[in-house]
C-alpha cells in the first residue's frame, strides 16, 4: 500500500467519524420543555405572585431540628417587605424577603425578622441555637400551600395560605387548646354584668362550648377576624348578646369589651355532669400530664430509674391475699386468707404493673363528692415501695400533693378522655385511661 492510498484511507475514516458526530437530529430527548434557568425563573415568579396574592398572608408552623416550635403568619408585599407575626413575641414587624437562584429556586428571608430567632447562634447551645433556617429551597407551589426545604437543615417547611384573622386563631389556640402543650388553664370563663359563663374549646377546635347554666350548653362555630373572632351562633350572657370578641394587645386577652374578657379559671362555674360517679370504682393509668405538672414527672423519672407508670385508684375493690407461713421445727405450714378492701390511692409502679406485695404508695381515706363533677380526696397513709423517698423528694412530692390538694379535683370527661384537674390550680391536670384488670390483687407474705 502506498502512502497516498494510506492517507486517503485515513481521511475517509476521519470524514466518516465527523459525519457520525455531526448528526442533525438530537439523539437525547430533553426531559424538560425549557432550560433549567427558565424553569427556575418560572418557579420564582410563580412563587412570588402566589405569596403576594394571599390577602391574609401565609401560616407557618415551624418545628426546628432541635424540636423548638413556633407559629408565624407572614404577609408578603409587592416590594420586598414581609410583615411577620410570631406567636412567641405576639407582635408583628416588617423585614424583607427575596427570591433568588441558589441550589434551585430559593425563598430567602434576607433581613432580620422574628423568623431569625430560630437561627440565632446566641441562643443556647452557643453557636448553634435552635438550628432553624431562613433560606428555603422552593419544592412546590400551589394556591393553598408552598412546600419548602431548609437550605441548611433540609427540614421540610410548609407555608399554608392563611385565613382571615390567622394570628388571632394562633393566639386563641394558645390560650384555649389544652392539647397544645402550652402551660394554660383547663377552664375559662366570661363574666358579664355579674353573670358567669364557662367557655370551653370543643374537641374539633373549631367551636366554642359556652355553658350559661347547669346543663345549658351552647355550641357556636368560631370565625376568626382581623380584630378577634365572631361567634356564628350568638349567645346571651347577663342580658348581653355576645357574638364578637376583640383581641387586646394591652391585656393579651380576648373580650367583648375592656372589662368582660375571657379569663382562666381553676374550675368551671357550672357542673359538667355527674362525672364523679362515672369514674368511681375503677383504677386508671396515666396517659398525659399538663405542662404545669410535667417537671415533677421528669424529676421522678430521673430520680427513680425503675419507675414504670402511675396508677390511680378511686375506690377500687382490691383483693388482698395474705400468705401466712408458719415454721415449727421441720414442719412448714402455709395458710392463705384473703379480704377485699376498697382502695383510694395514687401509686407509683416500679418495674412492675399491678403485681407484687405493695404499691399503693400514697393512700387515701375517703372521697367526698363536692358536686356532680368535683371530688375531694383525703390522704391517709403512705406506704409501699419507695414511699418515704418519694415523699422526701420535694419535686416528686408535688404529684401526690396535686392528687390530695385541699380544694379538690374536677373530673372532666370528653369522648373517651378522662381528665382530673386541680381546683386549686387549673393548669395542673392529668389525663387518664381506664385500667384493664377486673380486680387488682395484692399478695402479702407473712412469716409467723
Amino acid at each position, binding site marked *: 500500500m502506498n502512502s497516498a492510498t494510506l492517507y486517503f484511507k485515513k*481521511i475517509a475514516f476521519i470524514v466518516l467519524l*465527523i459525519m457520525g458526530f*455531526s448528526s*442533525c437530529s438530537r439523539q437525547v430527548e430533553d426531559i424538560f420543555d425549557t432550560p433549567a434557568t427558565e424553569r427556575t425563573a418560572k418557579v420564582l415568579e410563580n412563587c412570588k405572585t402566589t405569596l403576594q396574592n394571599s390577602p391574609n398572608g401565609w401560616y407557618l408552623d415551624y418545628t426546628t431540628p432541635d424540636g423548638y416550635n413556633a407559629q408565624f403568619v407572614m404577609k408578603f408585599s409587592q416590594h420586598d417587605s414581609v410583615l411577620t407575626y410570631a406567636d412567641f413575641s405576639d407582635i408583628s414587624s416588617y423585614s*424583607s424577603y427575596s427570591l433568588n437562584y441558589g441550589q434551585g429556586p430559593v425563598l430567602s428571608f434576607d433581613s432580620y425578622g422574628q423568623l431569625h430567632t430560630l437561627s440565632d*447562634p446566641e441562643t443556647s447551645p452557643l453557636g448553634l441555637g435552635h438550628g432553624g433556617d*431562613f433560606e428555603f429551597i422552593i419544592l412546590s407551589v400551589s394556591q393553598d400551600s408552598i412546600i419548602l426545604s431548609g437550605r441548611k437543615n433540609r427540614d421540610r417547611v410548609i407555608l399554608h395560605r392563611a385565613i382571615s384573622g390567622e394570628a388571632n386563631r394562633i393566639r386563641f389556640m394558645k390560650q384555649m387548646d389544652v392539647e397544645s402543650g402550652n402551660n394554660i388553664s383547663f377552664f375559662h370563663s366570661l363574666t358579664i354584668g355579674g353573670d358567669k359563663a364557662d367557655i370551653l374549646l370543643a374537641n374539633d377546635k373549631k367551636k366554642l362550648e359556652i355553658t350559661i347554666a347547669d346543663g345549658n350548653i351552647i355550641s357556636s362555630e368560631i370565625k376568626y377576624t382581623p380584630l378577634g373572632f365572631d361567634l356564628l351562633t350568638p349567645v346571651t350572657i347577663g342580658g348581653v348578646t355576645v357574638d364578637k370578641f376583640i383581641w387586646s394587645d394591652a391585656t393579651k386577652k380576648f373580650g367583648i369589651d375592656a372589662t368582660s374578657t375571657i379569663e382562666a379559671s381553676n374550675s368551671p362555674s357550672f357542673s359538667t355532669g355527674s362525672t364523679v360517679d362515672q369514674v368511681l370504682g375503677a383504677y386508671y393509668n396515666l396517659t398525659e400530664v399538663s405542662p404545669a405538672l410535667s417537671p415533677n414527672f421528669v424529676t421522678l423519672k430521673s430520680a427513680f430509674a425503675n419507675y414504670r407508670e402511675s396508677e390511680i385508684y378511686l375506690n377500687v375493690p382490691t383483693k388482698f391475699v395474705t400468705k401466712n407461713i408458719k415454721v415449727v421445727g421441720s414442719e412448714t405450714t402455709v395458710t392463705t386468707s384473703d379480704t377485699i378492701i376498697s382502695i383510694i390511692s395514687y401509686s407509683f409502679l416500679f418495674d412492675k404493673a399491678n403485681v407484687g406485695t405493695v404499691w399503693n404508695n400514697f393512700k387515701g381515706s375517703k372521697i367526698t363528692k363536692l358536686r356532680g363533677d368535683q371530688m375531694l380526696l383525703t390522704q391517709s397513709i403512705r406506704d409501699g415501695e419507695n414511699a418515704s423517698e418519694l415523699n422526701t423528694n420535694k419535686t416528686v412530692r408535688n404529684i401526690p400533693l396535686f392528687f390530695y390538694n385541699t380544694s379538690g379535683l374536677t373530673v372532666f370527661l370528653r369522648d373517651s378522655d378522662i381528665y382530673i384537674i386541680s381546683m386549686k390550680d387549673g393548669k395542673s391536670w392529668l389525663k387518664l385511661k381506664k385500667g384493664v384488670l377486673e380486680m387488682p390483687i395484692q399478695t402479702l407474705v407473712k412469716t409467723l
Partner: protein
Amino acid sequence: MKKIATKLLFSLLLLSSISCTKEKLSDSIIDTNKPFLNETDQWIRTNYTNPYNIEVIYKWNDGETTIGKNLIPPKEEMVKPIMKMLDSVWIQSYIKEGGLAFFKKLTPKQFLLIGSPSYNSDGSRTQGTAEGGRKIVLYAVDWYNPANKALIWEEYIHVIFHEFGHIMHQTINYDPDYKNTISGYTAAWTDFSDTQAREKGFITAYSLSGPDEDFVEVLSIFVTTSPASWDVTISAIQNPAAKAALIAKLDKVKTYMNSAWNIDIYSLRTTVNEAIDRVVTNTK
C-alpha cells in the same frame, strides 16, 4: 492531492460545526430591575456608596458568608447607627489626617454586616475578617451600644482600624526589618495572654502570630486608645527588653505612616479619640 484532501477535511469540519438547530438563549438570569430602596438603603447610598464607593450589605446573601456557620442578618435598626459611628470615628478621622484621595484609594469596597457573633467550633469567636482589602465583615452588629465604650472599641473600632492597617501595608509595605525588632513570633499565640505577650515585646497575644498582624496591632491600638491608657500599658511592662522593643515598634509604625501616607499617628490618635468620645457622650 494531500492538500485537497486536507482542505476537504477542514470544510467538512467547519460544516459539521454549524449545528442545524439553535437553542434560543434564555433571558439573563441577572435581575436588572432597579432595586427598591428603603430608608436604610438610601442612607447607605448617601453616606457610603456615593461619596466613597463603599457597598454596605446588611441583607442576607448566602454566597457572601462562611459556609457551615450559624449566622443571622443584623437587625435593620442597628445598621445606620453603627455605620454612622464608623463614619465619624474611622472615615472622617482618616480623611482629616490623610486626605480624601488617600481614603478613597484605600478604602475597602464592601462591608458585610452580620447580626450575631461568629462562633468557632472551639468556642472562640471571630470578630471581623477582611478579604484582600476588598471586603470587611463585621460580626455581632446587634450588640452595638454606643454608650458602652469598651464594647464598641473591642467589637468594631479596633477591628476596622486593624483591617484598614492591613490594606495600607498591602499597598505600600513597611520596612521588612520590622520583624527583627524582637524575636518571638509563634503559631501558638493563643497560649499567651495579652500581658504575657507584652512581656515578650508584643502589644497583644494576637501580635505574636506574625509580623503583619503585629504591625497593624501596634498601629490600630495606638491610634484608637487614649494616650493615658497607652502609656499605662507600656510602663507596666517589667521586662526592659520587651518595653524597648515596643517603643521601637511604635517608632517604626510612626515612620512608616509618615513616609508612606504622610500621616502623623499622634495627630491621628487625637482625632480618633475625640471622635470616639463624641459618639459615647452623645448617647448619654
